[in-house]
């Protein structure tokens, strides 16, 4: 069909074709976010009357920060997500270190036990966990949002996979120099494993930030409630509320999107390790 064209002409044509193919898909994937953005800046008197806004009105954003508890929810989510991220980095590093550098009785059995946790969907244990933390009087606290997530099999696998690539001689040499295991982990393994730790961190922070089911069950007040619960409590009663709700969604998405934009590579690496669980 294009036999008469030169190679360069054909390549140029292909590029145009690819652009034409991609533009509609890109628009469709972006559409929900673009629509949310548009609704959030639409003046409230145009919400029910016009599809496209005539001017940009940022009042909804001011209301998000002055009239709602969203700032508090953002702070709560930051505290919880940072604590979970840091905690998982520590617990998973330690466990992965034991599984990749140390010899001990029951190593394979314990590794299997951790492998087995991937078979249990979190939703299947959520009722029992809810009853447990309720009986301890843990409801509506920060630690109830943090402690159950302080370790993950995915994190252990991701780091172990990484640690196994380090030479065993490194460990032997450090031992000969009188470096104990704790110092070896902290001063040699952790700095070497920074990319893997970054991947784990980006993935865990994002997942915790995006959590919904568990915080929904165990929080009752704005004091500890997290962002995803917060925005789902804004409702679309009237035109002013609609703008507010959409602005709230945009504000809460910004941190997620920033992690995606600035840590895309780490996030994707973490995701690929985490997808084994799904």
């Amino acid at each position, binding site marked *: 069909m294009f036999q008469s064209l030169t190679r360069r002409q054909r390549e140029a044509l*292909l*590029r145009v074709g*690819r*652009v034409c*193919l*991609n533009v509609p898909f*890109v628009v469709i*994937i*972006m559409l*929900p*976010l673009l*629509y*949310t953005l548009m*609704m959030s800046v639409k003046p409230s008197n145009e*919400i*029910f009357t016009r*599809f496209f806004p005539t001017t940009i009105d940022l009042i909804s954003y001011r209301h998000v920060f002055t009239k709602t508890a969203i700032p508090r929810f953002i702070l709560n989510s930051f505290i919880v997500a940072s604590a979970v991220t840091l905690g998982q980095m*520590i*617990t998973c590093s*330690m*466990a992965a270190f*034991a599984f990749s550098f*140390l010899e001990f009785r029951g*190593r394979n059995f*314990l590794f299997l036990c*951790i492998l087995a*946790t991937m*078979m*249990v*969907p*979190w*939703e*299947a*244990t*959520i*009722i029992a966990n809810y*009853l*447990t933390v*309720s009986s301890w009087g843990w409801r509506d606290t920060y630690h109830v949002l943090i*402690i*159950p997530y302080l*370790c993950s099999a995915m994190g252990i696998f991701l780091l172990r996979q990484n640690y196994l690539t380090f030479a065993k001689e490194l460990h032997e040499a450090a031992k*000969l120099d009188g470096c104990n*295991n704790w110092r070896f982990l902290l001063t040699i393994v952790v700095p070497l494993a920074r990319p893997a730790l970054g991947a784990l961190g980006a993935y865990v922070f994002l997942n915790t*930030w*995006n*959590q*919904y089911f568990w915080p929904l069950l165990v929080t009752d007040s704005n004091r500890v409630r997290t962002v*995803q619960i917060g*925005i*789902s409590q804004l409702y*679309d009663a009237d035109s002013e509320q609609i703008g507010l709700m959409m602005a709230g969604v945009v504000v*809460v998405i910004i941190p997620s*999107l920033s*992690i*995606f934009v600035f840590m*895309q590579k780490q996030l*994707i690496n973490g995701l*690929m390790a985490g997808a084994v669980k*799904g």
Partner: protein
Amino acid sequence: MVRFSHKSLLRSGPRRRKKTLYEHIEPYLFLLPALLVFGIFLYYPFVKTVYLSLFLTDKFGQAKLFYGLQNYYDILFGKYSASFLNSLVVTVKFVVMVATGGLLIGLATSLMTVGKFPGRTFSTAIYAMPIAIASAAAAMSFRMILHPSIGLLNASLGTQRAWASDPVWALPIMALLTIWLVSGINFIFIGAGLRNIPEELYESASIDGAGYWRKFFHITLPCLSPTLFFQIIINIINAFQSFTQIRLITQGGPNEATNVIVYSIYLDAFRNFRFGSAAARSIILFLIILVITLIQFKMEKRSVHY
């Protein structure tokens, strides 16, 4: 500097220095935090869920009356079976739509970004982007898109439909939202699978004069089949666990048309306070996911894909 005087170098073979007590327990100390978290929040609640599923409970979830397998009987064949079996059917329909829809979008977007074109970096970023978006945030956004009077969907179709409360459309619409949510991970995995196909296969096919579609059906698809299989399993497991979007948009309605299994567990436990029956539902969910995972293991072991 090499220290030849060191004892452990001089002594060869298995006769090594005896380990101290601390050295024996040290590895377990490294594992302790992980095992504590898993023990308290995974193993214990799992056993407790099995236990609860054999009891009738009070409003606070205390096991009150031993009920044997009656909870399972009630939801599978007895008084709650109509609702539970409906949940299963709804979930399977939902899972099929999400798994295939997600896979097709992922395949299309990753194929479209293979060659060079202006805006390629931007396009790939956008296709991957849904991985970062919370299901709650996306659900709030879709609530607006589905709004009966001012929603984007009605505006672009020229209709006045209340999509979320339409008995026919509610479930496909929820599947559509979920496909949007999983499209990013499908794009990333299928894209990675595509890049792993050896370039030489395409080159030799070109020499034989094969066109795009011939190459697609004889090279791309067969080489990609393990990735696609893995991805479809991931989609199935993800879709089985959907909850947020159902709770925020349809609340399982209209008339239980979108009452997927996780949402039915939530209703049973936290609206009707039937923790025993909800635990039995959870165990059934666990068994379903277990079977799917085992199928995946089995198929992967066979590893004959073409």
